[in-house]
């Protein structure tokens, strides 16, 4: 098959009449049919429903003339609720759960003319960095089938990287969009905390969770964010901050832009030398384009992983209390109510989810709350202040650059027996979730064995426009994003 079209090309073709929405939809479905048996990006493919929607768009083409996603096939991580379409969060406990409502992002995508073609694989309840914690089997990296695609939103990253859909959505609690984007060689954007409504997103860490897009160009990510961003009466944590015109911000001009570079983090132990080399080469490209590189320090970043795994597990233990066999999902039938709860949860949850519930329950329990949870929230303040300081004052930077992942994608099974090693895969990404800042992963090179490498940019609160401008400027002068994996 030819190189898959971008979101912008697809939409333009449908609106101009060059292609019908049905043709576009059939092509996406046949790409899924061809590639997915080997990659397992999807749990559910909504072929019939998608084609009916495509017919509707073709029949009323005039009505969709200004729709930003007219006829664009979209896939969604399987923790985003879709009315009438099974939503499992890759968990046995929700294996047969069919939501009676759409998440707000789903409603907005529908209004923008998008066509939902399927629900993608992820780590169970978004807990993991490799998609190996899925109860229904891992996804595989389209660049090397023996490698993980990253996680937790691995299926969505694979769907875009392998050309199955030009646009996909994932969710982040500690890097679950940016990290798989880096490992699959696509763009992945985590918006500012509160930028996008989470109504209908299955909750994991409520002070951290955010929904965002995967795309093959910065422009496509900008279009997608414009569709889903903004206040929502159904989510009181969705911000009323005005939504920028993200596409208009893609000027290609980054002259005078100040890029903060925490060199002490990029060259720390544990960072693969090919990753630090690729990031340095990318920074040189941005410098040649007129940006200024400023060495900065983020002294409390080294505590981000411990703080994250104390805060996120505490919130998870509380959020996952709802899976008790009463209102939806699995129930293990027992004559005693307490037995019913605990047997249901034993059967329904996988090892990583149980591990995090246990850890979170412990750090919130009497006698340990102050030592762990409160302490972690205080150190979280110090991490936030590091970022505030970098983005403010006379030496203020506009974005902060570092690797997205410390290593290229690892092999399936390599870290599954050692949860702590798996947690360290998030070392560069968790800070932005703790502070709330937006972040993007940009395709920025390949390892000597042909595995993708991502450059991570973190921006000021609600300044996704600048992040996208830098990502787009970089994309214009590099060709990493144009390469397609062997499995596409």
């Amino acid at each position, binding site marked *: 098959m030819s190189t898959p079209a971008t979101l912008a090309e697809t939409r333009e073709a449908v609106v101009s009449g060059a292609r019908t929405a049905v043709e576009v939809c059939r092509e996406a479905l046949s790409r899924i049919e061809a590639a997915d048996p080997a990659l397992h990006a999807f749990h559910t493919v909504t072929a019939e429903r998608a084609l009916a929607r495509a017919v509707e768009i073709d029949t009323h083409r005039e009505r969709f003339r200004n729709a930003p996603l007219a006829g664009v096939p979209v896939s969604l991580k399987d923790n985003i609720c879709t009315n009438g379409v099974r939503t499992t969060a890759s968990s046995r406990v929700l294996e047969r759960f069919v939501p009676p409502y759409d998440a707000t992002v789903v409603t907005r995508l529908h209004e923008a003319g998008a066509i939902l073609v399927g629900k993608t694989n992820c780590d169970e309840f978004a807990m993991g960095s490799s998609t190996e914690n899925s109860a229904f089997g891992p996804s595989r990296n389209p660049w090397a089938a023996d490698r993980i695609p990253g996680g937790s939103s691995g299926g969505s990253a694979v769907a875009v990287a392998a050309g199955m859909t030009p646009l996909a959505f994932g969710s982040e609690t500690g890097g679950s969009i940016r990290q798989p984007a880096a490992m699959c060689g696509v763009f992945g954007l985590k918006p500012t905390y509160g930028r996008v409504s989470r109504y209908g997103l299955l909750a994991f860490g409520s002070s951290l969770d955010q929904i965002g897009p995967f795309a093959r160009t910065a422009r496509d990510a900008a279009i997608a964010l414009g569709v889903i961003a903004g206040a929502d009466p159904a989510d009181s944590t969705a911000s009323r901050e005005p939504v920028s015109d993200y596409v208009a911000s893609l000027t290609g001009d980054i002259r005078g832009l100040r890029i903060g570079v925490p060199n002490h983090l990029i060259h720390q132990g544990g960072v693969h030398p090919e990753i630090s080399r690729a990031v340095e080469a990318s920074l040189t490209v941005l410098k040649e384009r007129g940006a200024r590189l400023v060495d900065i320090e983020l002294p409390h970043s080294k505590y981000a992983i*411990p703080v994250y795994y104390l805060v996120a597990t505490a919130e998870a233990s509380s959020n996952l209390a709802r899976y008790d066999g009463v209102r939806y999902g699995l129930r293990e039938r027992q*004559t005693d109510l307490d037995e019913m709860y605990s047997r249901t949860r034993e059967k329904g949850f996988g090892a990583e989810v149980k591990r995090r519930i246990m*850890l979170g329950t412990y750090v919130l329990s009497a006698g340990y709350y102050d030592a762990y949870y409160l302490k972690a929230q*205080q150190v979280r303040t110090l991490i936030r202040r590091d970022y505030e300081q970098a983005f403010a004052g006379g030496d203020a930077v506009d974005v902060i650059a570092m690797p997205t992942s410390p290593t290229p994608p690892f092999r399936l099974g390599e870290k599954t027996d050692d949860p702590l090693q798996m947690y360290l895969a998030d070392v560069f990404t968790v800070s932005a979730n703790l502070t709330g800042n937006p972040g993007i992963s940009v395709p920025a090179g390949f390892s000597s064995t042909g595995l993708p490498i991502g450059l991570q940019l973190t921006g000021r609160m609600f300044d996704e426009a600048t992040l996208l401008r830098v990502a787009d400027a970089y994309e214009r002068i590099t060709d990493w994003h144009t390469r397609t994996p062997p499995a596409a």
Partner: protein
Amino acid sequence: MPAEFTRAQIEAIAALAHLELDPAEVEMFARQLADILAYADQVQQVDTSGVPPTAYGVGPHSVDRPDQVVPSLAVDDVLANAPDSDRPRSGGGFFKVPRVIG
């Protein structure tokens, strides 16, 4: 702060979380939770005297809105996912659980 967890401690945490664990899981979590907490203990090195906690990265904002009545989900649709329920059309409209009183 415990450097290791006993079986009884792990079982007590599991009971708080309404989780039933098999003996192999109890053993595994005793080891792994100790490892993870030993790593997380580095936060104790940080001087946080006088530092307020951060619960959310973005400060709270006003969420006032007009108090308007809008339709909720239909009870039948909500109960459709329930493992056991009494539907409105049969006079019910509630979730059913094992008997808890006498």
